């Protein structure tokens, strides 16, 4: 029987190696056995440690990330795009998966049956050669040449153009050492005084013979296995893994993963038989890889393709995590991450402009809305954006708008590829409703302000927090001026905003219990966004608009500004600012932990202290809502 779908699968496969080496009829046999899998963003295809499937995979649309768990953190090892194969480990060795495959965006994947594939390629040594060399040539380190059967393409970072990865690793010179005769107690005292996590044991010729880390002391001394006066040689890990000093970051990381260790010894000739000159720790690698915002920004500004923007943005997440762990002030973290998000959008627009057949017909500005507009976006969120262009004669309007919609489509598509989901409510510049001329936008805002209704208020909460990311400044200034002028004409709009800001009451119930979701999947979870953050965001917006303050978009900065303007309410505003920062941090940590937006919190997983901290944040919410009721006379309006 004719199978057109198999033929189309076949057409796709044959464009990519190793399938291009196969004859059409053989390939069709494989194609007929393919399973087409649709993956939502974040769907997991296989997990590290899972026993192997009967398929290996090729990405048809979208992208799939391959991650490896190391020291309890997920590290992205590689990213597969359309035409890339992955999950090939079972093809070579009957072993469990060593990586986790997760859809990085919505994707369609072809699952190719291993049996069928092997049957079809049996006599085709070229195909096997391709597969084996594809795996083996990716091996950089001296160990793999011996064991190249065990090295797989999906085991290695494929961002090989990434300059950071190929920097020479910045190792610690003159590491702390001790002799073989030292007692463990003395070694530990030395580590404690110098506040370091490891010490290298060297012999008389300064060759490294072993290493002692905190965990060695925990596992071998604290458990009572060895007395505290024992010689260091009894508990050190030996032999150490050594390397030459010119190793790259990628090499260093790879060896650590391979040997499941946290430290590499750097010796003069790279073997254990020469003098120790330094130590490269896992921490050093992380610092070079992701801990440096200026490196990330440089990488963003240099990016000429969406793929590279994505790699750079992914690093920002590592950065975010480290910052939170290090307890760096949230206002600082927010600034850096916003800077990175804005830079990513800016560069995405530059790339999109190159794809357009002609330069823009008139001046325009790209606006970020919602949380990005407020510059307080930490995790990946939905994209909310809009575009405003200079006024054009009526007969040119459609043509001009069409140009910018096309531009916006390129931009939103690459933002989506980078990790920012399309806005569920389609509040994006690619939607004709939100891609308009200056005059049209002025009318739109006037309309919302002068004739407020439910829908206008729903949209206002997103559109009034805009900020310019790209393009002409004057356009945006003019729009802002019109908005503030219109606001002077009415107070009704403020009442509507006020009603919205007080619609979720204080998150604590009568008995000081948390109000949790009552039904649905999220039953018994606490919605920190709608119950904690939104009332604060809405209140800050209303107050700042009513005071005609321009250019302060951050919720916490808005409260700080208000504290400055109204000294008698200073305490309340400052506590709101604090509460906002604390709640955002809470949400971000939860989000990183569960790899989602962090919106819903499982109260049972919180410690008592955390619960108290949360509760403390809710007091100002109640107070600010009371203030709004009074100030905008909302009692009778509800």
């Amino acid at each position, binding site marked *: *029987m*004719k*199978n*057109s*779908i*198999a033929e*189309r*699968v076949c057409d796709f496969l044959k464009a990519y190696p190793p399938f291009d080496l196969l004859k059409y009829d053989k390939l069709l046999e494989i*194609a*007929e*056995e*393919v*399973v*087409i*899998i*649709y*993956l*939502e963003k974040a*769907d997991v295809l296989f997990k590290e440690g899972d026993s192997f499937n009967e398929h290996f995979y090729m990405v*048809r*649309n979208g992208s799939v990330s391959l991650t490896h768990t190391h020291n309890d953190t997920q590290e992205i090892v590689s990213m597969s795009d359309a035409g890339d194969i992955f999950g090939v480990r079972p093809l070579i060795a009957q072993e469990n998966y060593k990586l986790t495959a997760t859809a990085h965006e*919505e994707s*369609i994947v072809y*699952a190719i049956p291993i049996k069928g594939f092997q049957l079809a390629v049996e006599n085709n040594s070229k195909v096997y050669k391709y597969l084996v060399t594809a795996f083996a040539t990716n091996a950089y380190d001296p160990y793999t040449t011996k064991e190249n059967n065990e090295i797989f393409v999906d085991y290695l970072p494929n961002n090989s153009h990434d300059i950071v990865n190929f920097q020479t690793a910045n190792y610690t010179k003159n590491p702390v050492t001790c002799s073989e005769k030292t007692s463990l107690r003395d070694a530990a005292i030395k580590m404690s005084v110098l506040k370091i996590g490891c010490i290298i044991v060297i012999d008389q010729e300064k060759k490294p013979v072993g290493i002692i880390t905190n965990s060695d002391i925990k596992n071998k001394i604290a458990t009572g296995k060895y007395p505290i006066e024992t010689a260091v040689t009894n508990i050190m890990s030996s032999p150490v893994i050594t390397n030459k000093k010119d190793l790259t970051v990628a090499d260093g990381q790879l060896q650590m993963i391979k040997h499941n260790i946290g430290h590499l010894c750097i010796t003069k000739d790279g073997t254990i038989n020469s003098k120790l000159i330094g130590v490269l720790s896992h921490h050093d690698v992380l610092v070079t890889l992701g801990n440096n915002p200026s490196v990330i920004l440089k990488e963003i500004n240099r990016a000429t393709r969406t793929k590279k923007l994505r790699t750079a943005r992914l690093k920002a997440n590592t950065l975010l995590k480290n910052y939170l762990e290090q307890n760096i002030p949230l206002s600082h973290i927010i600034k850096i991450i916003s800077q990175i998000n804005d830079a990513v959008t800016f560069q995405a627009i530059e790339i999109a402009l190159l794809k357009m057949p002609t330069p823009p017909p008139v001046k325009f500005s790209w606006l970020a809305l919602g949380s990005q507009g407020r510059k307080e976006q930490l995790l990946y969120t939905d994209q909310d954006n809009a575009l405003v262009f200079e006024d054009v004669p009526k007969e040119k309007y459609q043509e001009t708008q069409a140009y910018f919609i096309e531009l916006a489509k390129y931009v939103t598509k690459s933002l989506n590829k980078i990790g920012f989901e399309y806005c*569920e*409510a*389609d509040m994006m510049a690619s939607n004709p*409703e939100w891609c308009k001329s200056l005059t049209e936008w002025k009318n739109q805002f006037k309309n919302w302000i002068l004739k407020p209704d439910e*829908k206008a208020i*729903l*949209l206002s909460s997103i559109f009034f927090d805009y900020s310019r990311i790209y393009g002409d400044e004057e356009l945006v200034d003019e729009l802002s001026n019109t908005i503030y002028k219109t606001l002077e004409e009415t107070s009704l709009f403020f009442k509507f905003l006020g009603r919205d800001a007080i619609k979720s009451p204080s998150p604590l119930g009568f008995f000081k219990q948390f109000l949790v979701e009552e039904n*649905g*999947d*999220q039953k018994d979870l606490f919605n920190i966004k709608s119950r904690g953050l939104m009332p604060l965001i809405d209140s800050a917006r209303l107050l700042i608009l009513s005071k005609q303050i321009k250019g302060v978009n951050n919720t916490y900065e808005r409260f700080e500004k208000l504290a400055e303007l109204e000294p008698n309410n200073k305490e309340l505003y400052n506590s709101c600012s604090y509460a906002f920062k604390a709640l955002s941090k809470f949400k971000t940590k939860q989000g990183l932990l569960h790899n989602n937006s962090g919106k819903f919190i499982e109260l049972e997983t919180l410690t008592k202290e955390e619960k108290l901290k949360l509760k403390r944040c809710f007091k100002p919410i109640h107070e600010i809502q009371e203030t709004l009721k009074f100030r905008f006379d909302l009692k009778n309006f509800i």
Partner: protein
Amino acid sequence: MAFKWFHKEKTKDYPDFWLAYLDAFNTKKKESVESTRFVAFDTETTGFDRKKDRVLSIGAVAFVGKSIEVNKSFEIYVEQDIFKGETVKIHGLMKKGSEEKITELEAIKAFLLYIKDAILVAHHASFDRNMVNEMLLRHGLDKLKNEFIDTGVLFNKSKHVIYKESLQEHYSLDDLCKELNVPKIDRHTASGDALITAFVFLKILSRLDKRKHLEWGYLLSR
């Protein structure tokens, strides 16, 4: 014998394959959306008049969850006396084409055996349903018993409330491909369109509110 008239209906001489088809519905119980078998299908026809026009080809793919097995897809071409030159340019099916053709009765048998009690998914489902139903009635059978989901209707339901007023009455399959970023492979062959419809359906499901809308009351309502 109050139910005599009812009883009489049942004793009508139906062929075994139809009784087997009906039988599947007797034991049916509602399962969760994730474990239900769906069949996305499409027909290519000689035109849009359900009485005068005929089905030339049926393509379908079945799926449970998010995986579609290529070798379990369905593709048949039907021998018909009625033929119209003007629709050839859409579906490319000629009267004496190279595809292996079967009779209408064989086509019905194969299709019913394939769909069983699955929930049928089609774009502008009422058209495809009517065409298949007419085919069944011509051979002395009854209408399809399966539940239907129309991807056009479902898409409208899935849109955010603030855009309700600007929704189009009709979305073509091409509109939805564009909107949902579905690759258009083999558009205008029955099985190609069936696969595209399956993707469209899965993508709409992924956009629905998982807490509220992934249940039968919502999916099957019109």
